[in-house]
């Protein structure tokens, strides 16, 4: 009759999952929680003392910390805004041009424009530092060619320009990613839709704004959240171009460099793992908030079309 044979435990599933889950949990998830936990303690005379949210209060309101924190956060927001305003529109424009079916050499353009993305921050930061250096004179020479030499100043050395300059360098490096993702999304639009649009007399720019743009909005959403996570986690470019002090006068300090300085110490200040963990936790909450905002508020409202 209906005697259910109890299935034997399927060990192979465990064997397949175990290595990945183990490494991921041990090196990523536990340290993340460990960091959150560390931020609740403070070193008092060699002993760890539980202080609750005291570290966070200090970071946000104590003048010794809060000035640097709000400065870094503000800079980081500007860093992100420049990316959203410059990187993503340029990426979309390039992708729109590349996806034209009759365009020749598109494989070459695609490969060439993606090259900066594969270079390390160290190379990118230093190469631009040399190019913009008044010592070498490449930038003033180039501006001279177009008669704009008077505009040149040592952009990376001036507090009012340095952050924007670095943001633009980062844009230069990463424009390949939105370009590729949007390009993929544009290629996925079926020809029938575009032909139907042409039958209705919608071509050229109008076709882009009215037909293609709505269809690639989900991809733009993903790119925005990737940019957000990448920017609020950035460190390498600033560190290679301006050093851990994020000069001039902390004007290019973002959360990543602030975390590094706090954790390891610099000049006369000693490193402080607990405040470092507090800053890392703040970054965690900021990134988590951004990702959740995207997942629950933006992604669910974007209309997806099934082709």
């Amino acid at each position: 009759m209906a005697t259910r044979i109890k299935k034997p435990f399927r060990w192979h599933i465990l064997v397949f999952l175990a290595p990945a889950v183990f490494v991921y949990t041990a090196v990523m998830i536990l340290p993340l929680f460990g960091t959150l936990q560390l931020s609740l303690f403070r070193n008092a005379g060699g002993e760890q003392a539980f202080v609750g949210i005291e570290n966070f209060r200090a970071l946000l309101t104590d003048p010794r910390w809060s000035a640097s924190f709000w400065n870094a956060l503000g800079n980081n927001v500007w860093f992100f805004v420049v990316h959203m305003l410059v990187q993503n529109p340029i990426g979309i424009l390039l992708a729109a041009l590349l996806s034209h079916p009759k365009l020749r050499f598109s494989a070459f353009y695609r490969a060439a424009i993606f090259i900066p993305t594969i270079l390390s921050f160290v190379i990118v930061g230093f190469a631009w530092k040399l190019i913009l250096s008044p010592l070498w004179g490449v930038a003033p020479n180039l501006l001279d060619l177009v008669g704009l030499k008077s505009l040149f100043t040592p952009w990376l050395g001036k507090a009012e320009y340095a952050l924007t300059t670095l943001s633009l360098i980062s844009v230069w490096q990463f424009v390949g990613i939105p370009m590729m993702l949007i390009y993929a999304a544009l290629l996925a639009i079926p020809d029938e839709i575009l032909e139907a649009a042409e039958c209705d007399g919608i071509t050229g720019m109008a076709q882009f704004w009215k037909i293609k743009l709505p269809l690639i909005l989900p991809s733009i959403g993903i790119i925005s959240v990737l940019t957000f996570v990448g920017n609020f986690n950035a460190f390498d470019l600033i560190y290679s171009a301006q050093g851990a002090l994020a000069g001039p006068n902390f004007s290019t300090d973002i959360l990543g460099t602030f975390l590094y300085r706090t954790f390891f110490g610099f000049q006369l200040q000693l490193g402080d793992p607990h405040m470092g963990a507090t800053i890392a936790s703040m970054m965690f909450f900021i990134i988590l908030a951004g990702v959740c905002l995207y997942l629950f508020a933006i992604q669910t409202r974007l209309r997806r079309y099934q082709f």
Partner: protein
Amino acid sequence: MSQARSSLPRTIAAHAILIAYTIIALFPVILIVMNSFKSRQAIFRSPLMPPTAETFDLVGYRTVMVQGDFFLYFQNSLIVTVVSLFLVLLFGAMAAFALAEYRFRGNTLTGLYLALGIMIPIRLGTVAILQLMVASGLVNTRTALILVYTAQGLPLAIFILSEFTRQISDDLKNAGRIDGLSEYRIFFRLVLPLLRPAMATVAVFTMIPIWNDLWFPLILAPAEPTKTITLGVQIFLGQFVTNWNAVLSALSLAIVPVLVLYLIFSRQLIRGITSGAVK
């Protein structure tokens, strides 16, 4: 395609914009590599000129070879990248297979748990990772870097590979089962070879951030014998900041291997992205 979508002025404008941007993208790279072959005077007198017989000079490369242990750094980077890549691909494919193939309790939950790492950067756990490595005596070893990069690469690898594993036909696997293959052999003999194209895509995505990373080598393995090339170049540049020949040569040496790899794999990479592997 119909005629309405292309006209001559529009095509010219498209090419003009693309060429302009290609120049912007390539100019710094070309400038650095070009000037690394010139004498110090020529670097400053005419930075925009390619090296001629007169200005050709390898003094920068000689300084780099004598002063920096770049072969060691290169070797370290290579070991760390290749081993991490191997582990990410193997463990990632195994986990992706388990998640895509079998129905068991907690399947969705495990998938979500593993996907968490796609959005949350591992860097935020640095403080505790350093403590972990200190406690286990792994500071200044390549093992520490390999472990961190394996954990960093796994979430995206599992996500992409499980999408691909789902596309492999069930008939094939069931035929294997009827022939008496164990689940392990089905995975290693049947599924893994079919996943090869997807794995190449994952490999490129995983490799670039590992090779280029500065943060973890700086924090977990800054000692001389374990420096990676990215960290080695960074420190070399800091020390030789006024020796322009050496700086330009070091930068070129760091650019060239990545560029060569990219030119080999760019087709794979672009196909991977455009096939919708990343959504």
